[in-house]
């Protein structure tokens, strides 16, 4: 039996600590991990819970992130609850095995503390690693602060282990701005958390020898397509389960989560679409702009995969101009997030104007003033009825002005 861990109703936790407490309360059986900034404290804390008897689990400190996810796959196929954490280069090294985890339908939970990808080497937050995972077949949820990192990590087990889902789940948070910033956090009691998450009921358990299983078979052109599309359908079909788990969590805590979250969108003329801590910055900017007569709203993507295509359409159908904020180097294209949001908007009747800002790479600060400037610029596009600047611009970039692509709709 695990030792009792004393918790206050209100704790002051950073995002890493919050995520690690969720791992403890979910009674994770195996964590195979490799340390990398800024996610390291999550697995360090799990190790300390094991070392001090607060959890009965196995903490396997492996020799690389690739091995961390490989060990998680072996452990998960052996029928227990499994989690780990990583960032950036570690996530990139893990990339090969991320696809194996989802293809084998193993409900591993991965806390990704978002950080830039080298080169040049950078330890600070951006969303390059998060984007790298977008085709890997994992559910991806994004926490904007420490409380959400805790809440969504608990939800992740319940979603992934649901027998109609059976998929691995990533819970993202912004490196340093969330992971290392202590905030008021309200945890569940251990009993309430355990009851909410429930016990894992394994499917195709490698340790059930009455029913041998083969994991990781080969399929060629005769079956590969069907397997991959079945997997795609499983991700698509996870949407109602995610909604149900969020609803159950709200009943328990009063904290409401939606796959797409909207702020001030009821009568908005212009909007920003964003992920992560930027959402809070944009919300403050939108509030402040009210006094200037600008009706600005924010659409925040809580669930990056499955991508909430229909909810994005619904949320943005009445605005005149939208700016999609990408915190990742587009490397020769429009921002990936811009492309996904634009694709959704193109299928609406109203087809609002859409622009793209690349911002915040490698931890570059994104200020309230800058968010206000972007909102005002969108208002100018809306007033003109067409985009008056380049479609892709850069926020907070030093040096001479840079922009790409003029609108053809004006």
């Amino acid at each position, binding site marked *: 039996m695990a030792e009792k861990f004393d918790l206050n109703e209100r704790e002051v936790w950073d995002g890493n600590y919050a995520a690690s407490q969720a791992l403890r309360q979910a009674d994770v059986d*195996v964590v195979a991990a490799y340390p990398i900034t800024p996610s390291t404290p999550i697995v360090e804390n799990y190790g300390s819970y094991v070392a001090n008897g607060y959890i009965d689990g196995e903490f396997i400190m492996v020799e690389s992130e690739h091995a961390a996810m490989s060990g*998680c796959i072996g452990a998960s196929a052996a029928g227990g609850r499994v989690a780990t954490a990583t960032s950036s280069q570690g996530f990139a090294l893990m990339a090969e095995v991320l696809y194996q985890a989802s293809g084998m339908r193993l409900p591993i939970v991965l806390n990704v503390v978002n950080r830039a990808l080298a080169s040049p080497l950078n330890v600070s937050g951006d969303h390059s690693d998060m984007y790298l995972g977008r085709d890997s077949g994992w559910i991806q949820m994004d926490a904007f602060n420490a409380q959400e990192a805790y809440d969504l990590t608990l939800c992740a087990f319940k979603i992934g282990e649901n027998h109609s889902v059976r998929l691995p789940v990533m819970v993202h948070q912004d490196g340093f701005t969330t992971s290392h910033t202590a905030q008021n956090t309200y945890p569940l009691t251990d009993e309430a958390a355990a009851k909410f998450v429930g016990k894992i009921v394994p499917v195709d358990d490698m340790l059930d020898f009455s029913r041998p299983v083969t994991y990781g078979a080969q399929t060629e052109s005769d079956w590969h397509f069907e397997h991959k599309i079945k997997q795609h359908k499983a991700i698509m079909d996870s949407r109602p389960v995610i909604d149900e788990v969020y609803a159950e969590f709200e009943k328990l805590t009063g904290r409401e989560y939606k796959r797409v979250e909207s702020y001030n969108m009821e009568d908005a003329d212009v909007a920003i679409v964003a992920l992560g801590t930027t959402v809070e910055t944009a919300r403050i900017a939108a509030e402040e702009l009210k006094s200037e007569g600008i009706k600005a709203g924010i659409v925040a993507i809580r669930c990056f995969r499955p991508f909430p295509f229909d909810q994005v359409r619904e949320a943005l159908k009445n605005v005149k101009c939208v700016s999609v904020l990408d915190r990742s180097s587009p490397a020769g294209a429009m921002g990936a997030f811009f492309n996904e949001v634009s694709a959704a908007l193109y299928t609406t009747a109203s087809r609002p104007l859409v622009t793209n800002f690349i911002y915040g790479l490698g931890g570059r600060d994104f200020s309230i003033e800058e968010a206000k400037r972007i909102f005002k610029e969108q208002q100018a596009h809306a007033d003109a009825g067409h985009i008056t600047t380049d479609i892709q611009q850069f926020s907070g970039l030093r040096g001479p002005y840079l922009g790409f692509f003029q609108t053809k709709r004006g």
Partner: protein
Amino acid sequence: MAITSIKNLKEFSTNNDRFEGAHTLCPGCAHSMIVRELMNCTDDNLVISANTGCLEVSTAVYPFTSWDTSWIHIGFENAATAVTGAEAMHKVRKRKGTLPDNDAPVKFVAFGGDGSTYDIGFQWLSGAMERGHDFTYICLDNENYANTGGQRSSATPIGATTSTAQAGSHSYGKKEKKKDIVAIMAAHGAPYVAQLAPNKWKSMAKGFQKALEIEGPCFINTVSPCTTEWRFDPKDTILLTDLATESLMFPIYEILDGHELNILYRPKNVLPVEDYLGAQGRYKHLFKPENKHVIEQIQGDIDKNWEMLQRREEARI
């Protein structure tokens, strides 16, 4: 642990059949003999993992499987990590009492070819050995990337021709010597490390049993003659293995706790290495006059290695 009797080959080869004969390995491939030896030498439940390679692609092509036990393949490099993840999970679930059968003994075994063991999976193997998991890693060493058409690996011996270390008018084939994986694994301080061969099937079965019985990470390198890439008649697999062990190209020995070396087979009449090399197409070019020095070098290396093994055995350190 109930271990099956290994007195009689016919009986031994057919009992406890958890590896189906219906697979797509080449006729004459030694992999299936070695795998069957492992699976028949114990009655315990087995969790098996495999690196990508000949064994893996030939035994689990959807919707078929040759494995009547738990089996997992992730990638080219990580079978050791996969099976040790399962081993860790077994420990926790046993403590918590959440296993379907909490008392049944379970053994964890990883298979890899030489490419995945000596080269691409080297780090994953080393990590798993260092962490001290209770598992056995078996390398099916056919000295090349046979699954992808015969490229050189760091297990390919000097002088062999492969598609990426070709013999030609200006080359005698691979220039580099084979990596000594057994010594490297012994240097990890593993409780049991061995090199075994399927022609010496009793010592192989006993070695496998020892590895399964001993708690901790065990490593066994097995010679697996490759009819396709070594270029010999599929009916001659065991003959080739005999030549390998009689010439001492593949000496059979074990190392306990990283230092205590025991030679498990001493040929009565050691064959010259020409007999072994001459039986295979991959060494044919070495018999040209300009390449004779390579055969001399190989023979010299074998002699030195045998001397070293005998001295280490005598020294008992």
